[in-house]
């Protein structure tokens, strides 16, 4: 059979190799290395903080947060799930994973929201950004682990950088979308009162886009969690490593325990961040009321204010 390779063979692998190995790595490695610095700093302080927080305190605080944001059901689930994780002996790994995920999400917010705002303001910038985001989302995450390792090395920080790249698109997209969706007459009203572009962003556009931005944050968070196992392959620790080593040693039990830990953590974070998305303002019943609610089958007095429509 005739095939194009008879006449033409493109040595793509060689080209990429020489591009990365002979040009990018020698010339830019210090630059890429220096990018790790802020990531490492944030991660270090987070890991230090989470490591130093006793399990009981952390569980209490996170359950409280869940209760304030998502209600008593999620709070109860958080409490039980965290106790379970501790009981199966994966508490330190879970904290490491949490620190990694939070670090990645933190940088996604810091990078993604400004990019989203820019995209919402400039059609040109948006047109440039879109295909890049599409590529970022379609390339399988395995594929760019290789250049990441070449440029950044192995370890926690490169793992987090890979996570950031993978999880970044939704928050950019939804920030852009949220701001563009703000009703035209509202922005017009703001301009008519003499708002500067910055005032317009802070007083009108961003607050009104917040729901959508939070939905983007939720997606980003979930994508970041989904990278936990993959980044373990380039030397990041945590629950991902538990699963990865479990798989390597055909230790089904270990891998399953790690997997369950990831799933529980994912559910907790997802519920809390989704609740943040859905509520306009976080207004919750008092502690006493909720405590009562935990123990009574039916709430004695429905003191709660009816929630305002969107």
């Amino acid at each position: 059979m005739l095939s194009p390779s008879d006449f033409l063979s493109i040595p793509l692998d060689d080209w990429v190799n020489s591009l990365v190995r002979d040009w990018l790595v020698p010339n830019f490695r210090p630059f890429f290395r220096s990018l790790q610095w802020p990531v490492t700093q944030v991660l270090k302080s987070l890991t230090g903080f989470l490591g130093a927080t006793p399990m009981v305190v952390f569980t209490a605080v996170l359950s409280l947060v869940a209760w304030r944001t998502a209600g008593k059901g999620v709070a109860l689930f958080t409490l039980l799930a965290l106790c379970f994780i501790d009981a199966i002996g994966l508490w330190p790994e879970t904290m490491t994973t949490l620190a990694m995920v939070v670090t990645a999400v933190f940088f996604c917010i810091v990078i993604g929201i400004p990019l989203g705002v820019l995209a919402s303001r400039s059609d040109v910038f948006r047109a440039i950004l879109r295909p890049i985001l599409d590529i970022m989302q379609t390339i399988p995450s395995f594929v760019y682990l290789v250049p990441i390792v070449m440029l950044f090395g192995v370890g926690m920080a490169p793992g987090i950088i890979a996570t950031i790249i993978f999880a970044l698109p939704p928050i950019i997209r939804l920030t852009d979308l949220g701001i563009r969706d703000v009703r035209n007459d509202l922005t017009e009203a703001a301009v008519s009162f003499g708002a500067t572009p910055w005032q317009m962003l802070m007083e009108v556009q961003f607050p009104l886009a917040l729901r959508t931005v939070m939905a983007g944050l939720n997606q980003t968070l979930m994508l970041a969690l989904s990278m936990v196992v993959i980044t373990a392959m380039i030397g990041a620790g945590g629950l991902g490593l538990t699963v990865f080593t479990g798989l390597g040693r055909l230790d089904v039990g270990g891998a399953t325990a790690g997997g369950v830990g990831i799933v529980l953590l994912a559910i907790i974070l997802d519920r809390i961040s989704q609740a943040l998305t859905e509520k306009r303002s976080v207004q919750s019943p008092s502690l006493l009321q909720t405590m009562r609610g935990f123990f009574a089958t039916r709430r004695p007095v429905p003191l709660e204010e009816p929630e305002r429509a969107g």
Partner: protein
Amino acid sequence: MTTKISAKNIFKIFGNNPDQALGLLQKGQSKEEIYASTGQTVGVDDVSFEVAEGEVFVVMGLSGSGKSTLVRMINGLIKPSAGEMLIDDIDVASCSRDVLRRVRREKVAMVFQHFALFPHRTVAENVAFGLKIRGVKPDERRERAQAALEQVGLGTRGDSFPDELSGGMQQRVGLARGLASEPEILLMDEPFGALDPLIRSDMQQELLELQRSLKKTIVFITHDLNEALILGNTIAIMRNGSMVQIGTAEQIVSNPADDYVAAFTRDVDRSLVFTAQSIADPAQPLDLANTDATAALAHMETHGLDAVHMVDHGKLAGIVTYRDANTAVRDDVALKHIMQEDMPTASAETLLVDLYPLAEKGLPIALTDDEDRLDGVVAPQAVFAQLSNGKQ
């Protein structure tokens, strides 16, 4: 009176090559031809007008006639393709961004058709928005917002959210937001268009009431001629991007510039537009001091009158009817005794609709000024004639 807003040969082309379209317009091409050949829309076509300080300038026209485009060029939300838009000698069409922002913050506020209230802020915060943008301190902001809310009768709703209020209330908030920054000019783009008729006429009355004390310069957009007639000191009629007539309500109804305007005015209730002045005859009073019944009778006969007004030292004193004068001459009674002091009176500005009950007595209506001097006389027949005139 000083001119507050002055538009000079304003054009607005929507499209990617306005200069080309302007050139074609100059060559006399129609808007349809320009749209067909270049795909550009002529939104506003060579409009000039002046708005005096403290007047309500109503712009009306059918949908798509360019009203919103025009009003948005007054505060620079839309930039004219050509022409000058002067607000107190600042040309908002060509001034720098900073100047334009200052004009918006200090001089011009806008009220929107669909209210455009910020759903994430309370009513009070909405009202204080303009002040916040200007950097007014929170305490002062709150005070002034509260004052503005009280002006529109919503003093107690400051902590509500806009979606908790009815449409009429929401537009009051929109109005309060416009008033809170104490602008000299208020732009209102069909502000009552989204309200149902009853609330709408309430709001019109309330706006008139407010305007009596505030004396803002108001540019008011509507497509309802009755609303225009009720509110406007001056009315401008737009058609297809051009201004076809500018004038007072009476001028427009009595003297429509073309068929388009005439079509608008056909259904108008004339008695709401015309004043007593328009159908008054010059007064021919007699002086009570030096007239007797015989002279009065003679006067009425020469002028063909049914009754004559009497003045005393220049002031209106009463009315003598032909019949009474006749009896008086026969019975030799003094004129003073047959003069009726109770008679229908009105002022020159009284609307015909209010003359109607007065005319029912069958006596001529005396038009008097503030000092009780007789300005003119309206024959009762003339009132009925005008009313039936309007309903052809």
